[in-house]
């Protein structure tokens, strides 16, 4: 059980949670994730750790409503409890110190940049965050990232805030020397399509890039192998060998196909929860 201390709607479909989890907060590092379960009979879902406060014993996560379970999570409010929270799982992000690190957050993926940028800035790295969303209202956590990061770049597809275009277009400009300049390392966290586009953008420029893979998982501890990702031609388990991998080695075709295995069931479960919620509100 983990008590929810604070919640905040970031967009109509994303919600910020600060929860009481002292053991996890004490051990967490950037890039790791937790497994959540919200009810008996509920599924276990992996959620990337957005931030942690060791002194306060709290953990921050940002959840986007994409399925039945995330919808149930987002219905929870401060004072309520999350049934199961286990972690921190997976390896943490390791970047050699002293360089210019560019963190790219797509949609709710921006959340995971909080603890990463704080840690890298604190040790003296030059840090840039590029946040992308379709439109201004969907951008999240830019204000929270500003004090943690030397530069925060905002991109929207419709130009309603910051740079008009995709994060990859802005990244290409940086690589060419614009603004904060060419990064030595890129870390991309967000939708698979965005991470793949980032990988393509940095491949030729030979900028080392990590992506945070988000495959289907059951246990999250190495037991099921359902999260296997093809990296450099080899099957790796995202939960124990990842979740961050060298973007230029990841086979995104396989990863995207594998993530669609249960689309039909996911839709069914989501509609069921929506129906039940509608019935309750009536």
């Amino acid at each position, binding site marked *: 059980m983990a008590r929810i201390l604070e919640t905040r709607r970031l967009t109509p479909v994303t919600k910020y949670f600060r929860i009481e989890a002292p053991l996890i907060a004490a051990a967490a590092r950037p890039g790791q994730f937790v497994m959540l379960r919200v009810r008996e009979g509920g599924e276990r879902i992996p959620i990337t750790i957005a931030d942690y406060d060791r002194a306060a014993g709290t953990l921050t996560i940002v959840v986007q409503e994409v399925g039945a379970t995330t919808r149930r999570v987002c219905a929870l409010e401060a004072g309520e409890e999350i049934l*199961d929270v286990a*972690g921190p799982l997976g390896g943490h992000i390791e970047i050699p110190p002293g360089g210019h690190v560019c963190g790219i957050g797509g949609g709710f993926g921006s959340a995971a940049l909080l603890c990463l940028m704080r840690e890298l800035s604190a040790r003296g790295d030059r840090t840039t965050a590029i946040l992308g969303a379709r439109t201004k209202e969907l951008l999240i956590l830019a204000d929270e990232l500003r004090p943690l990061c030397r530069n925060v770049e905002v991109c929207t597809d419709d130009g309603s805030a910051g740079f008009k275009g995709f994060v990859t277009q802005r990244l290409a400009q940086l690589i060419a020397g614009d603004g904060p300049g060419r990064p030595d390392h890129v870390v991309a966290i967000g939708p698979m399509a965005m991470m793949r586009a980032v990988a393509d953008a940095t491949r030729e420029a030979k900028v080392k890039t990590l992506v945070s893979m988000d495959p289907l998982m059951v*246990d999250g*501890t*190495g037991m099921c192998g*359902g999260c296997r990702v093809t990296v450099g031609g080899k099957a790796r388990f995202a939960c124990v060998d990842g979740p961050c991998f060298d973007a230029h080695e990841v086979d995104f075709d396989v990863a995207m*196909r594998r993530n669609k295995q249960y689309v039909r069931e996911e839709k069914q*479960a989501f509609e069921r929860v929506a129906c039940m919620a509608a019935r309750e509100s009536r």
Partner: protein
Amino acid sequence: MPVKRAEKTPMPVRDAHERAHDFREVNRGYTVFHAVFEAERCLRCQEPVCVDGCPVQIPIPEFIHAVAIGDMAAAAKILRSANPLPAICGRVCPQESQCEAECSMTKNFDPVGIGHLERYVADWERTQPPAVQAKLTRAEKIAVIGSGPSGLVCAGELARLGYPVTIYEALHAPGGVLRYGIPEFRLPKAVLDWEIGLLKAMGVEIVCNVIIGKTLTLDELFEKHGYSAVFIGTGAGLPQFLGIPGENLNGVMSANEFLTRINLMRAYEFPEADTPVRVGKRVAVIGAGNTAMDAVRTSLRMGAEEAMIVYRRSEKEMGARIEEYHHALEEGVKFHWLTNPLEILGNAEGWATGLKCQRMQLGPKDASGRARPIPIEGSELELPVDNVVLAIGTTPNPLLTRTTSGLLTNQKGCLVADEQTGLTSKSLVFAGGDAVTGAATVILAAGAGKRAAQAMHEALAARVS
């Protein structure tokens, strides 16, 4: 006096056609009449060789004698003195290669149904008020990592010796492989829950959702949390893959994933439960151990029309318990012996559609002591399938060893531990079960947990004096 009867009293089972479509237990268990009738067959040998065949040396003739005279309470007490998980072992032990293989009757007749009797007595015990005798008399706290068979037994023994014990479990529910691996139709969760309830009544604390090696390190258990000794029973949970083309196709999964989705996450209740599992019309399970039998029989229960075992060796080398094999046959499972998978074929959308195999023949013995399968040239065949489930073995999970210094493992990733005491390369850290032996049986894990508990008690006592 023993009554001469050649045949073992058969275990009452549910009808194969009926049971193959639900998850309720297949074996109904002996009634008291069956039990006494079967117990009378025991010859009460002067030198009970059956006991030598038991990994935890249950005083078999003694408990069977108690059953024969109808003293079930005495039988239960004798059983539990040697085996803390009798209701589970009575269901899942490979008796035919252990106690019953040694039974003096075996030469000419059926062996005594030791496993069936063990199960009967343990089930009788579950109908009685639990006899809990544990009092906290020791100051030293002990941590047990993992709540599978070795951890449960170790914790129970330590509690009986008076120690405050905490079990740390990584998943959201305790039981380890007994919960995520072995299906309800073979080991009802109620049996496991009863055993866990007994531990809790004895004062054992079970903390779920804590992954030692991640949430807390092993060293922190000693330094920050004040434990005096630690038992590692983390099992062998890492699934192996074949490394053949097509393993990443949709519809291909490890038996661990398949069984965890169903047993732990209750995918058979989807969408009532949230975790789904997609089972097609034809399911091929690769391997022929107990896990393979569990997976193939589970696929029938999940609606597969055709469930098959694909195994590169023959029936003789199969690792599964004979009872599971017979039950699988009765339920209509098909067996492709001497058939080696070469490639999993898929369609344009990336779903598995077929299994390309090659026929094998048996050659001379290999390192495992079993006949080596040799490919037959030009014997390739293709089995149409919708799912491929890999049940080709598991290895110890490296989560703990990766984050713990000074904990030695062998080339297979198994913890190095003293065979008798379970002591690892780290002082006051003991280990047992599959984490040490690699994937083995519940009873071996239980035995190791029990021996380690005794060794921990001695080590702590020696430290005090």
